[in-house]
């Protein structure tokens, strides 16, 4: 894995954004050649803070993606399992996920794969853990009875199939989960640990998230920042890449 340690939340976000941008530009997407970006799912559609509104306001309205190329799991579908199976098919049809970007919960979960989820699970209906329900209560005026207890989620196995995985972890409350994810063993109680067995993982975090890691680990990866920063500098654009297509180098990997 690559562990990228930045000073704070803004810098971590910016580094991750630049990395994703360079990845997309190097990939050279176009009609018929999709850069398939995977993102974790969220709350049910009807909620005012709904995932759809969140994604629209924070992502889709700023870019020129065609609506038919956006696939979001529908929590209101009549047959939930069929919806999940269809979602897996759509991923296959798009050529698989090129890059999956996600965060982890304080209990080490990736997407809604709560502790105890199978590390080879696929997209399915999942019952949420109390921790997650508490964390989501803020979207429902703190009323626990209103928070959904089930969610559709991509599975650990689904994410493992992505060609590259990027996990963003910021804040001291995630520090223990990060420690369990990368310094302890692969364990279905900390589902993010599954990515130790993925060939291409990037963890982007801030100083606070490293609070539970060994000093040795942190020093090692900080030492590699000089090399890792070459992934975000120079920052490429689609227009430039047209000219440089022949000379593009494969980005550095472990």
């Amino acid at each position, binding site marked *: 894995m690559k562990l990228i340690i930045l000073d704070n939340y803004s810098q971590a976000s910016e580094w991750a954004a630049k990395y994703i941008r360079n990845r997309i530009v190097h990939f050279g997407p176009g009609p018929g050649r999709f850069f398939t970006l995977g993102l974790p799912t969220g709350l049910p559609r009807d909620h005012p803070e709904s995932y*759809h*509104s969140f994604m*629209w*306001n924070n992502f*889709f*309205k700023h870019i*020129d993606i*065609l*609506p*038919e190329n*956006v696939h*979001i799991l529908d929590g209101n579908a009549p047959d939930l399992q069929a919806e999940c199976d269809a979602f897996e098919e759509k991923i296959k049809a798009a050529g698989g996920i090129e890059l999956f970007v996600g965060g982890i919960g304080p209990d080490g979960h990736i997407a809604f794969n709560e502790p105890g989820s199978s590390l080879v699970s696929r997209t399915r209906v999942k019952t949420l853990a109390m921790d997650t329900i508490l964390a989501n209560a803020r979207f429902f005026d703190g009323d626990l009875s209103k928070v959904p207890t089930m969610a559709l989620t991509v599975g650990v196995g689904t994410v493992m199939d992505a060609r590259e995985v990027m996990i963003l972890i910021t804040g001291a409350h995630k520090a223990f989960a990060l420690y369990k994810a990368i310094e302890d063993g692969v364990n279905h109680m900390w589902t993010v640990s599954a990515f130790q067995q993925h060939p291409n993982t990037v963890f982007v975090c801030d100083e606070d998230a490293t609070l539970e890691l060994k000093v040795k680990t942190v020093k090692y990866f900080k030492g590699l920042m000089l090399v890792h920063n070459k992934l975000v500098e120079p920052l490429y654009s689609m227009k430039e890449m047209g000219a440089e297509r022949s000379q593009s180098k494969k980005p550095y990997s472990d």
Partner: protein
Amino acid sequence: MPSNKSVSDAPIVQFTNCRILRGHQLQREDLWVREGKILNPEKLFFDEKGSADVQVDCKDSIITPGFIDVQINGGFGVDFSLATDDFKSGIDLVSQKILSHGVTSFCPTLVTSPPSVYHQVLPQISVRNGGAHGAGILGAHLEGPFISKEKKGAHPEHCLRTFEAGAFQDLLATYGSLDCVRIVTLAPEMRRSSEVIRELTKRGICVSLGHSVANLSQAEEAVQHGATFITHLFNAMLPFHHRDPGIVGLLTSDKIPAGRRVFYGMISDGIHTNPAALRIAHRAHPKGLVLVTDAIAGMGLAPGRHTLGQQVVEIDGLNTYIAGTKTLSGSVATMDTCVRHFQEATGCSVETALEAASLHPAQLLGIERKKGTLNYDSDADFLILNDNLYVQATYIAGKEVWRQDASGM
């Protein structure tokens, strides 16, 4: 970009690179329009899987809802209180010309006139949508003749009337028809005004208090019976007095029925109201302030003599007086000038100044679901302004109906 719209095939226009007035703030958002209405792009994206057919780069301009003028007596040589043969073309001319001032809807106003004028003119005014032909007409504003002699201002005394004999029937007989009437200004201290106010309110007509010597309790009683507007605050009413604030006291009255708001028109041309008085009113009751022009026939014309109903007025710069006197009579300011002057004089935010000319008049007339905002599903009547609040382009129902050309016309 090809789009797949399941709801409608009409072209979708996306205005980008702009700041729009929404939610009382200037937000950096795109404005989406389809079939003459403001479109919700999120619903378009997720439900219809549609996208824009045309994108317009607004070069970082401000987009605001179109201005609504609820008190305008004429302009460009046209006087709405004069029953001429070509009255219809007169109204058409004004409605077309005010597009360049940013007005997308208005209430043609008639000052105190003899019944014959009302009987001839009112049937020629019809409520209609705006478009390339001109701003939309929301209905007439009848200012008088049921007003106070002491505060007649520029209104002709011989045409003043009372309704103490037959109350509402007198009013109806005077005007002839109330079909296209939207606002009536009257003096609430007149006998039987309560009945009249109740009857007008029942018919959906906005009752405004003005040209009156009412004290505060008479004004409050009028509001309780249904009055919701004050015609050009401060002008043609008793001045504010600390033991009887008069009509001005409505701005901070505690006798306004719950859930209702009293609005008040202000002519912010720098002449009708001293900037300090404008600030006092604004600070006392900012949400009720409605900018009006009270423009007369001479607006848009050169200085000199013009008519205003039965009177002759003289224009000198921005001042208009009854010929030979110092009595103010209407103004020649344009709506966009009023917005700019209001913003400068009060130091308020751009959003506040723009809302005083768009949202507040729409709320006064109860049409804020369709006009006066850039909310989804409302009519796409809007303006493109530069940072100094000068109108660059006017749109009605999503179509450009006026544009500032390079020569500054």
